[in-house]
């Protein structure tokens, strides 16, 4: 049986590749007659051969990037998106770059599925990247528009539509933030407000990485080029907050979206590995054992007022952060109001966030094109992302020690590291490191304070960076 299949397959494959061998890649529109009605079978046979000329096997050997990238394309509105030369690192053929990206995306899927790295996002991102790098599949192509009639003659790929609908407009990250708000309990922050300063300090990583990106760009000359927009987008990785990073990057440096999202989610998953050594280095054993005062209970009224307070404050001082902070606080308000609007908060934190997560992940993955990912910049981004996480963690811990000097009630500096966000992973890390020094000292709830304030902090930074760098 197996022999039969094999020989049959081999025979067909031979015919097929023979056909392909002597087929010139069909020149679009050259020999196609006006209507299919008049076409004869030879032409169909040519098309069948053309099929063999557009297999992925051949695509992975293709030298040039897809036509719509190189030559530009027309939008239905009549606007023209200009093309640009597409270069892959080392002058590799474009198809080989795509093949490398396929391997990298399989690696991402491995991390997501086997290692459990933020699988809810990295699985769709990796899968989207896989799809986007399959030659001739057209899943990221814009629609084909007739130059004369301006009518769409061929619809675009589905990843193109997802991206344009939700990422180019900024809607998906906003909707995710609603869900995040509906799932976040700001109670620990309300009970101990000063921990918000730890969340502020931990944003230091963002700016160090931003500055580092500019230094790297200067130092490496033409090898790695980052402008202010790129640097700000790279810095925001240090916010340790996926939707915030995607929101800012999609506005400032969409060509880096794939690399930055991958770096952000990967390092968020690596928080339990990245943070502990830094925390132990900066917080002496004695301070790691500090026991904090138990958090006071927080009333419903306080929890309901909190999102409105934050929103109003944000509006008064930093209007540019209002979209992100507003969405977060809308979700949180629905959560805290309780049963009367449980339908809304339940939807935000389930159906809506899940649907958007799928579409967002795929859209982000669609930007994992080889010419954007396979270059020295990506290595720089990965390095700088690590720098951002490390400095954020360090700044949080140092701020914790500083505050400890000035405050009556003691603060365990270990909770400072939770200020980088990465909810609730970073808070768990604080707890775990604390337990190593004193197995009876549970820091988890205390660490949730800086943890959730870190979310607000990085949304604020994103707003500021957007305004200053756009």
């Amino acid at each position, binding site marked *: 049986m197996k022999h039969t299949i094999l020989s049959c397959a081999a025979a067909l494959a031979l015919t097929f590749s023979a056909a392909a061998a002597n087929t010139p890649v069909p020149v679009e529109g050259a020999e196609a007659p006006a209507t299919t009605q008049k076409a004869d079978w030879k032409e169909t046979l040519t098309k069948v051969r053309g099929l063999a000329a557009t297999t992925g096997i051949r695509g992975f050997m293709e030298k040039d990037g897809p036509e719509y990238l190189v030559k530009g394309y027309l939008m239905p509105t009549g606007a023209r998106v200009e093309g640009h030369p597409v270069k892959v690192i080392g002058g590799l053929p474009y198809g080989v770059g795509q093949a490398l990206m396929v391997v990298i995306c399989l690696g991402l899927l491995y991390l997501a599925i086997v290692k459990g790295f933020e699988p809810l996002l990295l699985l769709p991102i990796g899968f989207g990247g896989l799809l986007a790098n399959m030659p001739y599949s057209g899943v990221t192509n814009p629609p084909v528009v007739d130059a004369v009639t301006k009518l769409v003659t061929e619809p675009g790929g589905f990843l193109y539509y997802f991206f344009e609908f939700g990422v180019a407009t900024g809607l998906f990250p906003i909707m995710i933030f609603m869900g995040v708000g509906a799932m976040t309990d700001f109670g620990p*922050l*309300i009970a101990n*407000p*000063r921990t*918000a*300063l730890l*969340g*502020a*300090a931990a*944003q*230091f990583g*963002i*700016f*160090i990485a*931003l*500055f580092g*990106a*500019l*230094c790297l*760009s*200067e130092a490496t000359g033409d090898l790695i080029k980052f*402008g*202010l927009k790129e*640097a*700000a987008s790279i810095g925001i990785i240090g916010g340790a907050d996926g939707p915030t990073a995607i929101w800012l990057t999609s506005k400032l440096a969409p060509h880096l979206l794939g690399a930055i999202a991958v770096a952000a989610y990967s390092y968020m998953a690596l928080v339990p590995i990245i943070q502990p050594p830094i925390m132990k280095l900066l917080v002496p054993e004695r301070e790691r054992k500090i026991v904090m005062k138990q958090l006071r209970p927080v*009333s*419903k*009224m*306080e929890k*309901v*007022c*909190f999102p409105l*307070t*934050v929103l109003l*404050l*944000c509006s008064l*001082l*930093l209007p540019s952060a209002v979209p992100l902070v507003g969405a977060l606080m809308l979700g949180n308000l629905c*959560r805290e109001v*309780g*049963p009367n609007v*449980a339908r809304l908060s*339940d939807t935000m*934190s*389930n159906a809506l966030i899940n649907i958007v997560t799928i579409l967002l992940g795929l859209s982000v993955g669609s930007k994992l094109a080889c010419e954007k990912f396979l270059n020295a910049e990506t290595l720089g981004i990965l390095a700088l992302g690590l720098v951002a996480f490390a400095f954020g963690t360090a700044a949080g811990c140092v701020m914790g020690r500083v505050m400890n000097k000035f405050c009556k009630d003691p603060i365990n500096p270990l909770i400072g590291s939770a200020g980088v966000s990465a909810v609730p992973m970073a808070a768990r890390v604080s707890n775990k490191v604390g337990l190593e020094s004193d197995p009876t000292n549970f820091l988890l709830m205390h660490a949730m304070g800086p943890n959730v*304030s870190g979310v*607000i*902090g990085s949304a*604020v*930074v994103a707003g*500021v*960076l957007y305004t*200053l*760098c756009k």
Partner: protein
Amino acid sequence: MAILMQGLVLLVAGMGIVFLFLALLVYVMNGASRVIPRFNHILPDEEPKKKPRAVTKTVVHDDGALVAVAIAAAVARAR
């Protein structure tokens, strides 16, 4: 090098702003924690909220345990 200066300005301004913002938030929240409790009666606390779906599952599983426990107790008592 000009761009590095820009980065430095961003660093200082950015950290300043985020600190200012969150420090103000701390200040406001400290004030609020003294003012709001007077109005707690407006929105009385409910029993702790639970996510419907999660609840369902938990309760259902708990139910199993509960039933077992309850029956064991009932039987024991009955004997």
